[in-house]
């Protein structure tokens, strides 16, 4: 979990993905659309990939995509979409200084 927390706090928006996961692609696209430049960690190409995946699952965070904003776990695809629809996602990104408007 330290590895996860470590990486997650390095940038305002962090997303753990897998290169083959197309839903991850959707979430990445959404973040780019909002003007955020999230740090992307492809667990299947990352050295510590397996360890991180294990840690994520241990926390009950489910699988990829795993989204962190301001160092805190936001959720998976379903949560991100729900938060985006009610405007919370944008607010979170602004609060974390990932975006400014």
């Amino acid at each position: 979990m330290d590895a996860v927390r470590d990486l997650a706090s390095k940038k305002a928006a962090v997303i753990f993905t897998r290169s083959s996961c197309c839903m991850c692609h959707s979430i990445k696209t959404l973040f780019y659309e909002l003007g955020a430049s999230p740090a992307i960690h492809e667990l299947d190409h990352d050295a510590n990939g397996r360890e991180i995946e294990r840690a994520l699952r241990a926390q009950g965070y489910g699988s990829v995509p795993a989204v962190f904003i301001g160092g805190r776990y936001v959720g998976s695809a379903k949560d991100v979409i729900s938060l985006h629809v009610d405007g919370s996602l944008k607010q979170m990104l602004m609060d974390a200084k990932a975006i400014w408007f």
Partner: protein
Amino acid sequence: MGTRTVRLEDEDGKAAATRMPSFDSQSPISNILVAFSYTEGGTIQTYHVCDIGAFEHSAGFCLEDAVNLSGTGDQAVVSDPLQIDTFNKAPTSFNINNQAETQRLLLEKGQKLNLVSISSGNTENWGESNMADASPRTDISTDADTEEKNQRFDRGQSAALVAYDSSDRSKDKMDQKMLRRLAQNREAARKSRLRKKAYVQQLESSRLKLTQFEQELQRARQQGIFISSSGDQTHSMSGNGAMTFDVEYARWLEEHNRQINELRSAVNSHASDTELRIIIDGVMAHYDEVFRLKSNAAKADVFHLLSGMWKTPAERCFLWLGGFRSSELLKLLANQLEPLTEQQLVGIGNLQQSSQQAEDALSQGMEALQQSLAETLSSGSLGSSGSSGNVANYMGQMAMAMGKLGTLEGFIRQADNLRQQTLQQMHRILTTRQSARALLAIHDYFSRLRALSSLWLARPRE
């Protein structure tokens, strides 16, 4: 000749007439020669009322045969001149004089016939007993009736009787014209009976098919219910999943329409906000229900949902990831929700933008999936890896492709999630009354699309 066909239907299929033919009160019984029939089995009785006035050209009378109609509304009534043959064989025959005399006779005797009851109101249980109860003068007609009845049994048909005053029978011969006409009638009767038979057979086979379909549906529904109740169903009963969802969706739509009608009448009758809110909460909860149904269907048969075959053609036009586009819905609501406060305008505007962005993101993910799938399936090793290597590659490719297909369910689920969230957010931004109008507008839009589909399907084609 002018004939009026009167059909008496029997509710319980017994040989009884429960309704009287309506007679023109201006033409007394003297103008009417009634041929009625009875049958043994429970069938629809067909009666013919002939206008004697039309008998100018033929010095005879019109005898009609009632054909057994099993359960249909078809009236294949033909005249069977065989009765005349019968009558000829009977101990007494009927008077076939010229029109004038016939009319005069009927005028005189008409009142005495029991058949007057035809015009006077309800007579029940036409049947042989009635015949027997008829005026004494119709004694002989009863005999002829019996003999004819026997003939009918032989032929498996119903008998037609003409009630007539027996004292007027004579042994006049028939016209040549009459004979030819009778022959033609015979032919027409035969053809009609064959047509009727074919039609009835068709109906029966359709009925059988219908019963089979109903049973299949029942079975599928039971299996479908099993699927939806168990959370992690690993087996996919694909055909049944689709059919089950179609049935469930149809039921959902019916209930939705009912709720919307309730909402509409509440709005029109200026119901209070509290009352409206109750109905609206019901509608929103019902929307949650359809997303739950779709979620189950996505597990059972994702391609059925994606195909949109559960929607009408015009709706399918606008299909996006197995449903409607939230952003489009909000666009068409924009004008209908006025007046909106500044805050509401901003809120709705943001919602539209958010849903648009989410839709784009999901669409791009789908495109990536398609591309990835294509790459997986097209990467063939046409090399010298050896046959076993090829097979292993092939199986590996298929396994990977299977994995990618599996993610389709996730996309449909997120698309539905987007639709559900958009509806709920819209409801949060709007007032109760505005929400009511919005729900009504959405329903009207989709029901017009469905109506358009019906029109389209029913359009005349050259």
